[in-house]
């Protein structure tokens, strides 16, 4: 147990900050995912063929390739691309993109694909009458969306978004391969320097279980709250 103590002798504080890092990356990734979903959901629902294909390509490709591949592509490719752009402007040094940003972006792109599907499903399951009624009432197009469709869409997507959140939370463990010190990376370091991988990976597993358990509790509360009137 002294391995988990806080301070210089134990790994408690390191693991604690690593857990905060995991939470931060997950929230960042989820937020980036929402941005992607807000762009691609309208594309997927659009009547325009080309826009439709663009939206479908995004979700199909991202959900069809391993998460690790997206992360590697961004991590290795991103550095190269940034250096190439910099070399045009006459800078030839090595550029390292922040691991946090790359990681959150990579996981965000992935969770965005899942969120897009969730939002699309939610909008499709809103009763047709709601669209018609808001049209009949003479509401403008954007007010229709913001005041009628969006609130219902969010309520309907909470249960599925909770799944996306769990997937995102677990996917952040993959960012450890790029060197960002989150739970997985920290346990890897601790396991390497104490030669006790069994213990530290078990701790990592428990930390992830606590995170998923707590987030389930919070999301269930939200679900109850937003379903009050139904």
């Amino acid at each position: 147990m002294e391995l988990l103590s806080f301070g210089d002798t134990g790994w408690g504080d390191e693991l604690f900050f690593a857990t905060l890092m995991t939470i931060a990356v997950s929230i960042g990734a989820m937020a980036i995912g929402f941005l992607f979903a807000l762009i691609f959901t309208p594309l997927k629902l659009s009547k325009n063929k080309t826009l439709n294909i663009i939206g479908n390509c995004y979700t199909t490709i991202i959900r069809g390739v391993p998460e690790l591949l997206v992360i590697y592509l961004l991590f290795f490719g991103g550095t190269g691309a940034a250096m190439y752009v910099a070399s045009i402007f006459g800078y030839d040094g090595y550029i390292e993109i922040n691991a946090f940003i790359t990681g959150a972006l990579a996981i965000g792109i992935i969770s965005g694909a899942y969120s897009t599907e969730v939002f699309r499903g939610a909008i499709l399951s809103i009763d047709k009458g709601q669209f018609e009624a808001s049209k009949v009432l003479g509401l403008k197009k954007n007010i229709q969306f913001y005041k009628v469709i969006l609130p219902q869409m969010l309520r309907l997507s909470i249960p599925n978004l909770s799944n996306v959140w769990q997937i995102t939370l677990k996917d952040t463990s993959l960012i450890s391969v790029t060197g960002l010190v989150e739970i997985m990376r920290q346990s890897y370091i601790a396991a390497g320097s104490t030669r006790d991988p069994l213990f530290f990976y078990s701790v990592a597993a428990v930390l992830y279980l606590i995170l998923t358990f707590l987030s389930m509790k919070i999301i269930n509360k939200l679900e109850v709250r937003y379903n009050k009137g139904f």
Partner: protein
Amino acid sequence: MISIFPSLLNGAFITLKLLVSSMFFGLLIGLLFAILRINKNPIINKFAYGYSYFFRGTPLLVQLYLIYYGLANIEFLRNSFLWVIIREPYWCAIIAFSLNTGAYTSEILRSAFQTIKEGYIEAAQSLGVTKKITFYKIQIPIAIKQSLPAYGNEIILMLKGTSLASVITIMDLMGEARKVNVLTFKPFEAFITAGIIYLFLTFIIHNIVKYLEKKYGFQT
């Protein structure tokens, strides 16, 4: 682009081998735990629930590391005959993947078992079919048919999951792509080619499952 293709295809072959063997063991584990989950005994029930909660609540990478690095730490395992298995990264990967997909499969099958209409079982009972035969000949086939769509998703998730084998030195498709990237410093070529192969595999699996659904799909 063409020169890296053969090595990537070799990797894809290993990916498929990992996928098929872990899906096979995972299905067995999943079926076993689904049966335990619907058992009325609370201890057996809770045990099966705990299993699926652990494996669904933690990242696959943690499970892989626990088995690959963690198990080797236990003295008596190192001295037992099991050491032959757990010292090989390939077998560790299969164990981790099977246990992981087993947990998800057990949930899929459990919900399928629970949605079987009472009428089928009652009909079997009124025909004088014994409980055991009802279970093997009616409940299990219906559950498997009903869970085909969800199981198809699980296969694709697992295909993506096998890419993690590359972090424990297995040269699967992902591992080969990483090697190409390190050797040539051409990340885009390596990873995009690998991505296309992964997409192709996903596409094939998706269509096979769709075909099976059409052929054996069960409408209630």
